[in-house]
């Protein structure tokens, strides 16, 4: 019998269709997740549903840096132990969390909520760049770290921001691009290797 002839419950197809709308979830994965949810104990699913609802009710964007937060301004913006004179600019909150997990940066952040992508209709006005400029004018930092992805669009975003603030006499830096730890030189592509050479550091 052809699978297409099997009529599935509208509740299941509704669940599959909702899961399918999530980023990174294709139709097959959505089906697998849906049937996993159906087979799971009720208390587990209730707790999953609760945390989904809570995340929507309690989380918002920080008015200052636009990171996802429970309190406004966020913990990072109000923490006096952090260097508020340094702003690291990232594309999304998830990038700030990635940097936070390294414990190597103790400054503040500014979340752009995306990157410039003209082909998708996303220009500077669709990002939080104007809020960043106002933030800098209100409280000038000593350093801006541009930590957008090293792609053409990420780089165009970094270049645009740097052009907007270069006259404000602030040190502007960009995250280095190069060979990853544990990587082999002969496995590294030419562009990355060239960039690594150009960004080489003097051993003191």
């Amino acid at each position: 019998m052809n699978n297409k002839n099997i009529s599935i419950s509208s509740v299941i197809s509704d669940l599959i269709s909702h899961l399918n709308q999530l980023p990174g979830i294709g139709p097959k994965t959505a089906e697998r997740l849906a049937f996993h949810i159906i087979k799971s104990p009720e208390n587990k699913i209730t707790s999953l549903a609760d945390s989904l609802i809570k995340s929507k009710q309690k989380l918002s964007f920080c008015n200052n840096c636009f990171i996802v937060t429970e309190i406004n301004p966020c913990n990072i913006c109000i923490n006096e132990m952090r260097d508020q004179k340094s702003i690291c600019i990232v594309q999304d909150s998830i990038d700030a969390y990635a940097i936070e997990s390294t414990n190597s940066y103790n400054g503040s952040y500014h979340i752009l909520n995306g990157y410039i992508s003209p082909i998708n209709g996303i220009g500077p006005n669709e990002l939080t760049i104007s809020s960043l400029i106002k933030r800098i004018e209100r409280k000038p930092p000593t350093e801006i770290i541009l930590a957008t992805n090293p792609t053409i669009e990420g780089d165009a975003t970094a270049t645009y921001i740097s052009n907007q603030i270069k006259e404000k006499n602030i040190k502007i830096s960009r995250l280095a691009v190069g060979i990853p730890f544990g990587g082999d030189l002969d496995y590294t592509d030419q562009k990355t290797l060239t960039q690594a050479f150009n960004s080489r550091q003097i051993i003191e």
Partner: protein
Amino acid sequence: MQNREYLNFEGITISSYEYGEFDKIFNILSPDKGIITAIIKRIRKTSNNNFDYIDIFQKMNFKASLADNFCIIYEAKSLQSWFERPIKLTNLTSGNIIAELTINFNSINENNNYIYHLVSKCLQWISNDMFIFSLVYFQIKLLLAEGIFPEIEICLKCNNKIKPGNYLLNLMESGIFCNDCSAKTKFSNLKLLEQEIRLLKHIKNTEYDNNLNLNNIITQKTDLNLYKKLSTYIKFYTNKELKSEKILFSSINK
């Protein structure tokens, strides 16, 4: 087990979007098959000896397996990369406009080889900051290749040769009417200035090579107004807005 057909081809990556957790889908313009939609697995997570750095606006050699309506890339080796860092917003946006136009017109296969070399040439000029000229040149050559370039040599109604002057371009009829005939006709139109018509004729009849530079008189004469008029003309035919266009206009105004 399904037999897979393998394909080696040269192509230009014209657009991409993220897919799943680690993958990316690329629209690759090839000289033989037009736009090929291809997935590159795990490209956002790991470096791989089979792949050079891949991003939009790169000419590469690809090895792929063909699936039903897309293909999976197994190898990609760089041949040419146009946009070097730092990347200007106007250049990125112009490249995106060329990508959007190429995708919108990707239906007539006999033009693939010509369009491929046209895209390559225009990306080269954009990387040399000649973005307005590149866009106008691309519009004109694309319209010619698709057979919808407007008639600007003779009047559509009386067939008399058009004398130098300003004229109205009839969108519906795809051409211009002489002053006598246009007075008698009602239509949706665009005003083309004398120097714009001259420029249109010149670019129509000239193939520039890759080495064109900013000091060339034609690149200096070409302005945004002609681009906007041709864009209105193209939109009339495709009925599609270009998302990149409003970002180009706002970035130029700034």
